[in-house]
Every structure is written in structure tokens, then in C-alpha cells.
């Protein structure tokens, strides 16, 4: 290596301790005869030292993200349990209502009210979903 230029890649590998001993010695031998190479080595070493001393605001590390991560991971289980429980209760309620001895007009009236509410709820949710898809400000955060 001593009789040709030290490439950028070799220079970086040398500085970062990624060269085998033989190639390291070759770079050092080359540096002894090249002012330009010595200047480059000094520059990158200075940069490396400054970057190694770079610090962050200690407030950043004050609180672990584990709490938020755990909540996010537990949320699907919560939704699943909520959905399963709601379905079970609804099935039981419908069965109790249908098998009750209430007069047919009462069953029809109550059934219409419940179905009406469900249809309205579903249409509002669908409308909101369509709005979200075309909302130009959906990525804007507070």
C-alpha cells in the first residue's frame, strides 16, 4: 500500500480500527511520508473526539418508554375482551328478550328502536371513516 494512495475507504477503516494489523502498519508508514495524510488523520480524529463527547439533554432519558409501549401492547387484548363481552351480553339480551312473554307489538317496537340506533351509529362511523380518508389535514398534529 505504501507505494499508492490511501483510499477514502481505507482511511476510514484505519481511523475506526477496522483494518487488520498489516494494513494498519502500511497506512502508518504512508502517513510518515505524507503531510496531507497526516493532516487528514488529525482532522478526523478531532471530529471523532468531539462527536464521542456529544451529549443529550438528561430530561430526555428521565422517563422510560416502557409504560407507553406496555399500554400499546395491552390495548388489543382490551379491545378483544370488550368486543367478546359485548357480543356475549348482546346474544344473551336478544335471547332473553325474544323468549320473554312480552306481547308481539312490544317486541317489534323495541326491536325497531334498537335496530334504528344501530343503523344510525354504523352510518355515522362509515361517514367519519370516509372523511378521514380524504381529509387533507389528517397528518397535522397538535
Amino acid at each position, binding site marked *: 500500500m505504501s507505494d499508492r494512495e490511501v483510499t477514502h475507504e481505507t482511511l*476510514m477503516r484505519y481511523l475506526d480500527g*477496522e483494518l487488520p494489523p498489516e494494513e494498519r502498519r502500511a497506512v502508518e508508514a504512508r502517513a510518515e511520508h505524507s503531510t496531507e495524510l497526516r493532516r487528514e488523520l488529525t482532522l*478526523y480524529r478531532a471530529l471523532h473526539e468531539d462527536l464521542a463527547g456529544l*451529549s443529550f*439533554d438528561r430530561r430526555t432519558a428521565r422517563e422510560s*418508554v*416502557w409504560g407507553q409501549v406496555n399500554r400499546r*401492547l395491552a390495548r388489543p387484548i382490551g379491545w378483544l375482551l370488550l368486543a367478546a363481552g359485548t357480543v356475549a351480553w348482546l346474544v344473551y339480551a336478544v335471547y332473553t328478550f325474544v323468549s320473554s312473554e312480552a306481547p308481539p307489538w312490544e317486541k317489534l317496537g323495541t326491536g325497531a328502536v334498537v335496530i334504528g340506533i344501530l343503523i344510525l351509529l354504523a352510518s355515522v362511523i362509515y361517514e367519519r371513516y370516509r372523511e378521514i380518508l380524504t381529509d387533507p389535514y389528517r*397528518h397535522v398534529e397538535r
Partner: protein
Amino acid sequence: MQPEVERELVRKCRAGDTKFYEPIVRAYEPQGLRLALGMMGNSDDARDALQEAFVKAFQSLGRFDTTKAFGPWFFQILRNQCRDLLRRRKSRFQVEVVGDGLLDGRRDTGPRSAERSRSRGEAQRLLWRGLETLQPEQREVIVLKELQGLRYQEIASILEIPEGTVASRLYHARRALKDALDALGATYP
């Protein structure tokens, strides 16, 4: 964390038990935070990216090769998360990370410590400003090498590029950083 302990924890997490994920999160959080801060430049975005990356990693554990270390795989997810966040929010690297205290707890309490702290703070602010001017791919290679202290092989696996490209990208990134610092009035040899 011992590799066999980590493997066992990952195996239990794969079964869906989140409580075994906590030691993994706590073990990789400091390094992950440094990477995210270096990539994003401010603590709010860095914490968002870190949190999202841990959630994604947990959800993708089924695809994780347990014969390998969790760290490089996780940092790859985190790096992609930081890039996505920068792209999606159309935000940019924004320096807000330098404060009066140091993350690693090295506090200067000797004589004339206030003066030294002030000049060190100025130097750090200048460095962060320099990093701010770099392209994201230049900044990430600097962060992985200088702030994380990773080997070329590890950086190559995180960035999914050959080791030779890591070296050449580092050269151009350091060169660009030096030019930026020159423009900001810092004196380098």
C-alpha cells in the same frame, strides 16, 4: 444482557406475554434513544419513534431469527421508523437536544466549571447544528458509528448496505460535517 437470557425472553414474548418484553425494552432503550435522538434531533420525535419501534418489534417477533442478536434487528426497525416519521410528518431534523445536564451523567463540578460547561455547551450546539445540515443517510451513518459506537459489520446489517459502502458513506458524511462546521465558524485542522 446475556444472549441466552435474551433468547429465552424473546421466546416467551413470542407466546404473547408482554411482561417478558420489559427487560428487553429497558436493555435497549438507552442505545435506542441515542440513535433516535441523533436521527431526529429532538426528544419528542425521538421518543415517539422509539416507542413505535418497540411496539412494531414486538408485533414482528414471529419473523425474528432467534439465532441472531435482538439489537441490530431492533435498530434496523428503529432506523426505518425514524425515516418514516421524518417523511410522513414532512418534518426535518430539529435540534432541541442540548441541555444543561448530560445524559451520561458526566457533570463538571471543579473550579471554573461554569465557564467550562458554557464553552462545552457552545461546542456541542455547533456540532448539532453541523449534523442538522447533513443528508439523513449521512447523519444516520455518523450516528451509528460515532454515537452508537457500532462496528462496520453491524452498521452494514442495520442499513442493509455492504461494509465498503459504510466506509465510503462515512467518509462523505465526515467530510460534509467538517465543511458544515467550517461554515459555522468552527476551526478544525
